[in-house]
């Protein structure tokens, strides 16, 4: 995979605490404990990775385990398991398919990379990062990095994220930039500005072996900016071609090949029946058998799926299928059985089913990233709520289980929209809560499906109502507040409303509080009509 080029966008995600966090999870250790992971080096077990608490206590990498145990008896030790760490990194890289189809791992650097070229503009709708001077790609890249940072932070894992036009630059910034632990860092695309951004980084950012780093240090070269005045021919003669290769790769002068992780393969279970399957109980058994097999396959492949297709072929050759969708990736047999429980009722077997199958779509790593490392109660509860949402969506239809999102529209009826619950853990589209709830604009808790015309008596044409007649009610208004004037959408040629509206909140004699609207302006000579829109609490 060639990831060089000036217009490339590479995101590097560095996870320095990943081995410690994984080991703590495996061993059941608390995250507040002092933990050190060691490996055999030069005949001694030496510490390689340390938890933040151990570092804070003065323990340093490279210290032998015997010394560390003598100084800190309460410290916990375990050998490094590079294969398990690499597997977890691969899981992270597959999880990152949500950002780009091309992702990979950097096992030595404890990170993953994401090829964001051609994908970042899809995130440009995130308004927080929309810059009028920048194009969609830049704002999309920033939004993508911010989302990635937020998702990883939810796990409590420390992450450093950087983006640049080359893999080497993204790696260097993610590992060694001083501000990268607080927020994502973005290297400018232009070469001159990128040189400035990388100038202060140490030479270790070039991914060089220790002996070359030592030689560079002896020559007084400690920062990348120290290499700028030197010619590459001189550097090659003094430090060898490997060093210059890394230096060239930093700015994209040489290709930097990285191997992406393989996308997950589709999973399907098929069954050809010796005898045509017919009858409700036999069909139930058929569906149950296929579902159990699918759950087993997904478990073996360490995958989860968002949607499933149950298909069957009748003896007369007719092929039909049913689709089922989960609100979050799942593979538990119990969940799948409940999801597909009612499928047998919907199968019209006629003279029997001779061939049936179940396919899993939208495959991903088995669980969301929050569950890759988390064992918290929230994750468990979220999975139970997800199951409930899936069952209701399968029973009633996906458009019947919804959540409400705010719309930037002054018209009250259009100020909210419902959308299907795709993911219960998705926090996008959240409502902003007012700092002082009492200062928010008054809105009725119940809005009528359609405004109802009412007859109103007012002291003056532009005054609030004094008496209301609606259905069999005759109400005297005790007090009213308003108006809140909302004009028509004058900029929209297809608008249906052409008159301004004045909204009043009124309280009538029996205590009811109503949301009334006067359509049309008296001062303009419009024909005025009154409507009841909603009910206050």
């Amino acid at each position, binding site marked *: 995979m060639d990831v060089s080029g000036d217009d490339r966008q590479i995101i590097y995600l560095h996870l320095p605490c990943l081995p410690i966090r994984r080991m703590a999870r495996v061993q059941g250790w608390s995250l507040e404990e002092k933990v050190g992971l060691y490996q055999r080096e030069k005949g001694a077990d030496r510490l390689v990775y340390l938890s933040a608490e151990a570092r804070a206590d003065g323990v340093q990498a490279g210290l032998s385990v015997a010394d560390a145990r003598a100084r800190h008896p309460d410290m916990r030790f375990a050998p490094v398991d590079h294969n398990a760490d690499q597997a977890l990194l691969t899981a992270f890289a597959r999880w990152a398919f949500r950002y780009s189809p091309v992702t990979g791992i950097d096992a030595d650097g404890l990170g993953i990379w994401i090829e964001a070229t051609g994908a970042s503009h899809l995130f440009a709708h995130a308004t927080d990062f929309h810059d009028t001077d920048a194009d969609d790609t830049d704002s999309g890249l920033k939004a993508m990095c911010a989302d990635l940072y937020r998702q990883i932070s939810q796990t409590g894992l420390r992450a450093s994220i950087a983006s640049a036009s080359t893999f080497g630059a993204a790696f260097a910034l993610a590992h060694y930039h001083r501000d990268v632990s607080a927020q994502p860092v973005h290297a400018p695309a232009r070469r001159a500005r990128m040189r400035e951004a990388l100038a202060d980084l140490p030479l270790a950012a070039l991914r060089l072996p220790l002996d070359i780093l030592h030689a560079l240090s002896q020559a007084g070269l400690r920062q990348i900016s120290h290499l700028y005045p030197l010619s590459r021919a001189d550097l090659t003669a003094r430090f060898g071609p490997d060093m210059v290769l890394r230096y060239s790769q930093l700015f994209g002068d040489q290709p930097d090949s990285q191997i992406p992780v393989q996308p997950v393969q589709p999973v399907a279970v098929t069954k050809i029946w010796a005898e045509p399957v017919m009858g409700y109980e036999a069909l139930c058994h058929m569906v149950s058998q296929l579902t159990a097999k699918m759950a087993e396959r997904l478990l073996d492949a360490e995958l989860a799926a968002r949607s499933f297709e149950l298909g069957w072929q009748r003896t007369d050759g007719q092929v039909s299928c049913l689709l089922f969708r989960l609100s979050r990736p799942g593979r538990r047999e119990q969940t799948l059985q409940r999801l597909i429980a009612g499928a047998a009722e919907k199968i019209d077997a006629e003279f029997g089913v001779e061939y049936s199958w179940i396919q899993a779509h939208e495959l991903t790593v088995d669980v969301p990233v929050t569950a890759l490392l988390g064992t918290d109660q*929230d994750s*468990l*509860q*979220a999975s*139970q*709520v997800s*199951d*409930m*949402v899936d*069952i*209701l969506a399968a*029973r*009633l239809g996906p458009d*019947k*289980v*919804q*959540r*409400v999102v*705010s719309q930037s529209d002054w018209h009250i009826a259009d*100020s*909210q929209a*419902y959308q299907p*619950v795709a993911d*219960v853990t998705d*926090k996008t*589209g*959240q*409502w*902003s*809560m*007012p700092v*002082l*709830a*009492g*200062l*928010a*604009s*008054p*809105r*009725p*808790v*119940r*809005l*009528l*499906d359609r405004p*109802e015309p009412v007859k109103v008596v007012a002291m003056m044409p532009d005054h609030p109502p004094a008496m209301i007649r609606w259905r069999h*009610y005759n109400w005297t208004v*005790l*007090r009213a*507040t308003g108006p809140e004037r909302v004009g028509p959408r004058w900029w929209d040629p297809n608008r249906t409303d052409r008159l301004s509206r004045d909204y009043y*909140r009124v*309280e009538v004699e*029996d*205590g*009811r*509080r109503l949301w009334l609207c006067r359509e049309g302006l008296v001062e303009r000579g419009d024909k005025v009509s009154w409507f009841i829109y*909603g*009910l*206050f*609490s």
Partner: protein
Amino acid sequence: MLRLQIMQTTYFKSSVSDGLVNGSSDLIQGGRGGYISPSCKASRFSELKTQIRQADTARSFPTLQLKVDRFDIALSGGLRFGHVHLMTGRSFDGAATGFVLALLRLMMDQDTLSPVVWCSPSHAGHAGHILASALPALGVSPSRFIFVHDQHPKRLMGAFEEVLQTRGVLAVVGEYGLFARSADTWQRWVRRTRLAAKTGGTMGLLLGPPAPVSGFETGWHITTASADLFAEREGLQTDWRPYWSVQLTYSRQGTPCADKLIYDGLTGQLQSAISRPDKDGQASQLRVSKPALLASISA
């Protein structure tokens, strides 16, 4: 299970007595040949009732305190999770909805993560539907809600029952509309929801017009308070805080109770507008404290 066994035993005894005693109301046959006098029968029933009560309270659920002494005492501590509560109101009045939202706010202050599921018909006609823009003013975040919309009442109430069985849901609100019209269906469904709520430990709140309260843990009737009392409050003509007449019409573990409450969306607190009884036994009206926002501005 215990209740089922008791019901089966009672049925067995009464069926045997009908067959053998045949018209004699003085004595009934119980078990294998022994007769039980009415007094013994009464004491046996009282014993069974005690056992049922003990079985019910054996699995204790947490309670939600309304922080209004009168109601908390009447409810024997608060509104219990793991049960279904009936909230009724009059037509074209948002008070019952507001009271339910106030309860949800109290719950959300304690649990900041779990979602609330709101089951309502897609088109509720003149009852209208909940407006999410109004919730922030009551201190409730619309992001915490999952809405289940279906026009068919049986499917909708089935969804309500399904959600009740789910752990991890803070509360589920169901708008039953005209579902309570059929008494048989309603009673059967109420019994099912009781079992479902105990399975999931979720609080169920049913919202709608007046309906039979039998089988619920508590029954409430909420209306907007009449304007008489409100007009007497001095200097608060600009106070539009929700003001409700709340009646606890039925409580299985407590006693009925009524009070007038003011809800402050800023603090999320319910305040009683009526004080304790005076010496002569009349409930006197308290001067309601100024709303927190007005107080802060005047300060």
